[in-house]
């Protein structure tokens, strides 16, 4: 389904507040949100995407290990047959306060379509996702 998305917090990260707010915001915006919650592995994201025929995977990471946790996700998606699935990442993706541009570049190099810095309002990623999926 074009408007189905998989939402979750990757790795050993248990920050649930933003996850619950994103769930609410994307649902309100008309998406069918498959929320796999916190502490989710790459496999959890991929399995959920296959099962629900999702168009996008939205990965949150708030605890600084995002860089290690997200590495290889694009490759695993392709192996699993999720050829054109959109990959978004956002949150506090790295340990410590770093320049944003290099962080963004590293995640883009890993195959993420969009990467969001800390404090991005849900509205922006909703707008972007609608554009990327040609919704509305």
């Amino acid at each position, binding site marked *: 389904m074009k408007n189905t998305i998989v939402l979750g917090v990757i790795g050993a990260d248990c920050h649930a*507040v933003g996850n619950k707010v994103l769930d609410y915001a994307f649902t309100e915006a008309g998406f069918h949100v498959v929320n796999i919650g916190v502490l989710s592995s790459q496999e959890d994201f991929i399995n959920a995407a296959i099962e629900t025929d999702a168009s996008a995977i939205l990965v949150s990471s708030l605890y600084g290990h995002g860089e290690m946790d997200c590495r290889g996700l694009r490759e695993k998606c392709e192996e699993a047959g999720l050829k054109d699935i959109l990959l978004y990442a956002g949150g506090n993706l790295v*340990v410590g306060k770093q320049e944003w541009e290099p962080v963004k570049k590293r995640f883009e190099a890993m195959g993420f379509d969009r990467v969001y810095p*800390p404090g991005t309002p849900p509205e922006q990623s909703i707008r972007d996702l609608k554009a990327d999926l040609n919704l509305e």
Partner: protein
Amino acid sequence: MELQNKKWTEEEFLKVREEVLNQWPTGKEVDLKEAAEYLKKIPDNKNFAKRLKKAKEEGVTLAQPRAGVALVDAHIELLQHLQNEGGADLLPSTIDSYTRQNRYEECEVGIQESIKEKRSMLNGFPAVNHGVKNCRRVVEAVNLPVQARHGTPDSRLLAEIIHAGGWTSNEGGGISYNIPYAKSVTLEKSILDWQYCDRLVGIYEEMGIEINREPFGPLTGTLVPPSMSNAVAIIEGLLAVEQGVKSLTLGYGQCGNLIQDVAAMKALVAQAEEYFKVYGYKDIDLTTVFHQWMGGFPTDESRAFGVISWGAATAALSGATKVIVKTPHEAAGIPTKEANAAGIKATKQVLSLLKEQKLETSKALEEEIKLIKAETKCILDKVFELGKGDLAVGTVKAFETGVLDIPFAPSKYNAGKILPARDNNGAVRYLEFGNIPMSKEIKDFNRELLEQRAKLEGRNVGFQMTIDDIYAVGKGSLVGRPEK
């Protein structure tokens, strides 16, 4: 082993212990007698329990940061900076998130990557992997007490290693380090595992070694109504002292309304002491910790200093024994050591300016204390009832039935039916009570306060208020008013 709120026998403890110490090779480094000898030589100024007791007697508030990195030398450098430049009164060692999930292999990867990348690839200190010797290196390199701070549902091996390593305090609890930190760990297991941690401290106490325990007060740190966090704190306190813990620090996370925050701290101490008395626990050395704002922070560092300082002021005015300090980098994630020191310095300046001052009693303060106590009692009465007198059993059942329910918690064992929102004064109230068994009077009062806000804002009471409140402090205000 069947869960009940009863001190473990030596046999029970030792049986589990064998398994625990085999969870990772460094477990073999732990020798209880040798550790006791080591701990006895720790000077008073590096003993967490003794330092807190002294602060309580002097009526001052101590400042403690959060901090931890992957490698031992870098971690020591970090703690020394917070001690010498920041002027911290108490030191932490924040444990990384893989250790919290007992994923020690991944810690090993993180350690290796950190060496390679020459920066910490872990968000804390992997104490289990580093083992007893390295924990001792840490405590020997500083002049202050060291505490483990983490979020580990099963902290048994970690507790063994850090205490044998000379760290004289451990944060956490079977509820507070499960429900906000795990997705699918049962409460039976986490409470049992924390009984183990508490019993370990009890055993040290019986050997004449004072070790502090601190249940994690703020829970999800997001709009938790004070009566819910106080109920959990009192339960975890009772569970801990049953296992022989003597030095106990109960905590609370700042909500932002001065009256409510001071009332929550006062209600917490008074009510915990009442329960200790009723259940016959004597000689408990009860101290308190106040957490500076745990929710979303402004990205601007000057504004962050404002939030930090207001937290410090509330801590001082509430008479907290210690305050956990945020940093001007909070919004961006894990801070540099300089930013961490900056947060401590701003905090200490405010604490020290206010050390002669407490919030004076007022009618509003007294009424808020009364309300928090009444709400807390409604919850605790039901917990005891559900457990037929056994608090541990009652706690499990209370989460099953939503009698205990923590907003925004990731655990599937949490009902997730209650919703909080702020009233017109910024105090956190219950918007949805879920299955929490409050009296009609209390429910009506909470509702009335939120209806007043809704009226002022020209909208209905609802989840949008909650969402607006979650992001309000980051945007500059306490109450998330609709934009004009």
